[in-house]
């Protein structure tokens, strides 16, 4: 198993060690986004619009988006995961 994975923060690829979490991907990409999330100014959503925690685990290819708190968050009905 590869020890590194690539995730996408706001569409930008970020290579991280397998086992790292959402917070680490944010730090690797742009520490100011991590700081904003930690202080509650922003939050993170996945590609289906569901919120994820900073200590959430990541998979190879995970797509995450940072959103300003109270904006851009989508309430989703039953949906479909995208085909890989």
């Amino acid at each position, binding site marked *: 198993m590869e020890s590194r994975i690539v995730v996408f923060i706001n569409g930008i690829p970020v290579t*991280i060690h397998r086992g790292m979490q959402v917070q*680490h991907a944010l730090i690797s990409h742009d520490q100011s986004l991590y700081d904003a999330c930690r202080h509650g100014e922003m939050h993170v959503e996945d590609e289906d619009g569901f919120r994820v925690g900073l200590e959430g*685990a990541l*998979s190879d290819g995970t797509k995450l988006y940072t959103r300003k708190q109270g904006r851009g968050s989508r309430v989703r009905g*039953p949906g479909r995961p995208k085909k890989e």
Partner: protein
Amino acid sequence: MKTHVQRIMGLLALILLVAWVSAGVAETTTLTILHINDFHGRILPDADTDPKKPVAGAACLAAMIKTERSKNRSGTLLLSAGDMFQGTCESNHYHGAPVIKMMNELKFDAMALGNHEFDWGMTELNRLRTSAAFPFLAANIVNKKGIPLPGIRSYRIVQRNKVKVAVIGIATPDTPFTTKPDNVKGLDFGKPDSVLPRLIKAVRAQGASVVIVLSHLGKDDDSRLASAVPGIDVIVGGHSHTEISKPLKAEENGTIIVQAGAYGAYLGLLELTVDSQTGRVTGFTDTSGLKRVSAGPEDKADRKTALMIKPYVDKLRPTLDKEVGETRVRLVKPPTRTEETNLGNLITDAMREASGAEIAVHNSGGIRTDIPAGPITRRQACNAFPYDNNLVTMSLTGAELKTLLKQSVNSRQGIMQLSGLTVTYDRNKSEDPIVKAAVNGADIDDKKIYRVVTNDFVAAGGDGMEVLKGKPYETGDKLRDAFEQYLKKHRPVEPKVERRIVFVNDGK
């Protein structure tokens, strides 16, 4: 004549209606799946995120579970998708005992093994398992001989509202990357899509008409699994801390995917409609989704659970004031984050000793308070290092070490505190500020490989450490545990500023 035709038409319509009702509308029953994941020891309400709206905690979660179960007593399953115990002082101190007690009281039906279930080693995992009144499930963990872990089951079959439900547990194959290697030594974490088809066939053969995979893979891998493996009705997930506000339905196989965020802030509720004749899932209700576990003064708390948790919390309070060491000198955090301090030296020395690495690097910004001379309490140690960081050890070339030192002195967030490594900087030389850099007295060799311990924040490239991004590493102890162990062993400590980081020509 017209009336006669109308009567015949009316009769036909009635016959058709009766036939449609009896043939097309099957009788259904409801299965209620209550689920949580990644509770991480949150037995007390969390008021840190929003002091006006505390959430979670064992007592309020228990009240909500009991209320929801009472609505469908014979048709409810209560499941955990893993990572239940590690993560708070209250749970860590007792190695998860209060959480197991809460889960037993609430009559959980099963729990998937999360990666953090391995954090305290196999002995502690076995202790947790044997004290649980419900099975720990993981179908994809075997030892090198292909034998499953002792006492860990692949699946459990239960009957609810006359429907046989199989619950199969799946652990994340990423576990060896997230815990100390010794904790999972000799274990193989198999690919879920390799082990599941056989198990699904086996549980179906035993009469299970509903198959639930209790997964600690994370939502993206759950989605992949749902597409790759037919025959899974529901995946109750964890690991990615995803708040799936409304259940997802996979396109290929129709598998329903749910996950309830983390830390007990939500209770997941999935109401499955099941054909009573066939026992097969026909859908889920619109009321399925996440229920916020509010924990304010007006919110319902389960008294029995609260009383069960209280002794653990009460007993722990004094332990936060317990002495874990002593210092002869004031331990100083880096006041401007641009200087070596004795607390920086102490923590990096502790990191080196805990990991066996020859070099330790810790960010100045991760050291938050001073500790006065005298006895050191656990609370003071927690305040000085409030982040729940892990030690991580990696291999760096000498050239990479020099890059790290350059990035350290140029970082806007502050320099790295060092152990095993000394550096002299000249701030007038912005291109190449390193005058001299040595490991244990010897100049750094650009081609030599050095073992370096840091914390997971810095390893991710935090505080400007770009050179470490994407570097493979091994996970070690918790930083605070390493600190406490060092204080205990070297009591009393008397760390000094000893010119590990020196500036020349800096105008001082």
